[in-house]
């Protein structure tokens, strides 16, 4: 009786471990598919796309992970065949520096321009000299008198 219990427990443990390993693989498969571009649909990842080639790519990812390949190896497999185009996130290399830095450069340039403009504007709002103030008051009084009925 005790023997049977132990066997059952062991079988259950094996199954549970297996299920956990499968879930781990599935998660990695999903993550990889989300990192690769569907080569026929450009703006969709392999995970999102319903194109037959994306389905083939998902199958390939699954098969390679099951064989024990690492994530990097799988990405390299596709990159060797389809070029870096297949990576949804472009690699960091001299030809992509502008691509990666461009948005930040644009924001900094905009901020610098804003700062300059604001500075110029506040520099323009200088306090009046006493003479200027007197002339302004004269004008105001004149217009007040003219407007009186």
């Amino acid at each position: 009786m005790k023997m049977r219990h132990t066997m059952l427990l062991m079988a259950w443990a094996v199954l549970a471990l297996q299920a956990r390993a499968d879930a781990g693989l599935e998660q990695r498969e999903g993550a990889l598919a989300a990192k690769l571009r569907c080569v026929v649909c450009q703006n969709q990842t392999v995970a999102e796309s319903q194109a037959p080639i994306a389905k083939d790519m998902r199958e390939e990812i699954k098969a390679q992970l099951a064989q024990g390949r690492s994530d990097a190896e799988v990405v390299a497999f596709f990159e060797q065949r389809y070029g870096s185009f297949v990576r949804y996130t472009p690699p960091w290399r001299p030809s992509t520096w502008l691509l990666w830095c461009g948005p930040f450069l644009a924001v900094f340039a905009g901020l610098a321009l804003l700062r300059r403009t604001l500075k110029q504007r506040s520099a323009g709002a200088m306090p009046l000299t006493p003479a200027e103030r007197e002339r302004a008051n004269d004008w105001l009084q004149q217009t007040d008198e003219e407007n009186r009925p």
Partner: protein
Amino acid sequence: MRFALPLAIFLALAVMLGLGLQRDPRALQTALLDQPAPVIARPLLEDPRQPFDQAALRGQVWLLNVWASWCAPCRQELPLLVEFSRRDQVPVYGLNYKDQPDKARALLRVAGNPYVASAVDADGRTGMDFGIQGVPETFVIDGQGRVRYRHLGPVTAEVWQQKLLPVVKAVQ
């Protein structure tokens, strides 16, 4: 004068984006350029008991045309390939991609058969090794077995004259 700088920025952006729109992001040269062509370990369409003999093609320039009977542009391309390959003496081999051999053979009977031989890539795995995006695609492979050019889409008279043939002549 006030608007000179914004106008200049706008024009520069417009020109840059306009040029970008003219380009086809899919028309990238193959990642396999100047690399050894992937191994085609596949049976022949004509005789499934025989393997595609890629090693025998060493020493000559040949074209690999990826095709399928379900691909409409391929049907139009087949008679042209028959004509051009005969006229210019360029051997064309086929990779029958994700197709049913019966239908593939039937199409060749109707539309003409430009291929010295076709390899059957039933599950598309060899196509993946070649990094193909769609059917048809045509590769130029040189005497050392390296990929020298890839054309996406159907071969037309212009494509043959202006793209494929010059590469073939250059690597021969």
